[in-house]
């Protein structure tokens, strides 16, 4: 029973265009969301996060949008670069007192073509 879902296993975009990666969640108690990027044979690297009190957070080429009513978040990468080719994981955290676990999606593999 997946609480965090990344429904697209893969995505391919042209260099310079926008990449949009999507993530849906089912638990309305989640209040903090993160995106990580992972290259093969390396650990995930933190990219950007958003708290549930916001609907948008931007950091350079990366923007995360949160739609709480739809329980949906998305990561926009503009412009996309070949070095962005990686697996992107969405993760969520609840606000229950002892719940420090992150709940992870299964990842979306992004290929940015030159």
């Amino acid at each position: 029973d997946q609480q965090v879902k990344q429904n697209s296993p893969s995505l391919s975009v042209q260099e310079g265009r926008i990449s949009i990666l999507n993530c849906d969640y089912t638990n309305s108690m989640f209040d903090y969301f993160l995106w990580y990027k992972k290259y093969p044979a390396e650990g995930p690297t933190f990219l950007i996060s958003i708290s549930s009190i916001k609907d948008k957070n931007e950091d350079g080429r990366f923007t995360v949008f949160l739609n709480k009513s739809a329980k949906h978040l998305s990561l926009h990468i503009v412009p996309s670069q070949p070095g962005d080719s990686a697996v992107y994981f969405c993760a969520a955290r609840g606000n229950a007192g002892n719940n420090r676990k992150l709940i992870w999606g299964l990842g979306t593999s992004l290929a940015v073509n030159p």
Partner: protein
Amino acid sequence: DVKVTQSSRYLVKRTGEKVFLECVQDMDHENMFWYRQDPGLGLRLIYFSYDVKMKEKGDIPEGYSVSREKKERFSLILESASTNQTSMYLCASSFEVSGSGQETQYFGPGTRLLVL
């Protein structure tokens, strides 16, 4: 910058061997985690620790144990390695901005373990 290091990048062991995976973080983080990553299964939490000598089971603790004797070090132990424990093992550490619920995990480079 946060630095999380893992003792080995690649490891080959035989079935039945005892395996130790070490993780060290240099940012004085309270929380540490062990995951394994397998194709199509994402990141699955094995064990985590909120403090020295404390440990809690994650989603797939069977066949594993952990040790946290010092704040900066979190060890994962495979008591008797089996072929189904062949995987990429990832260690992470984190802190929570006090009371905010905002906690970011920082990962090491991973250990790719092959059990023959």
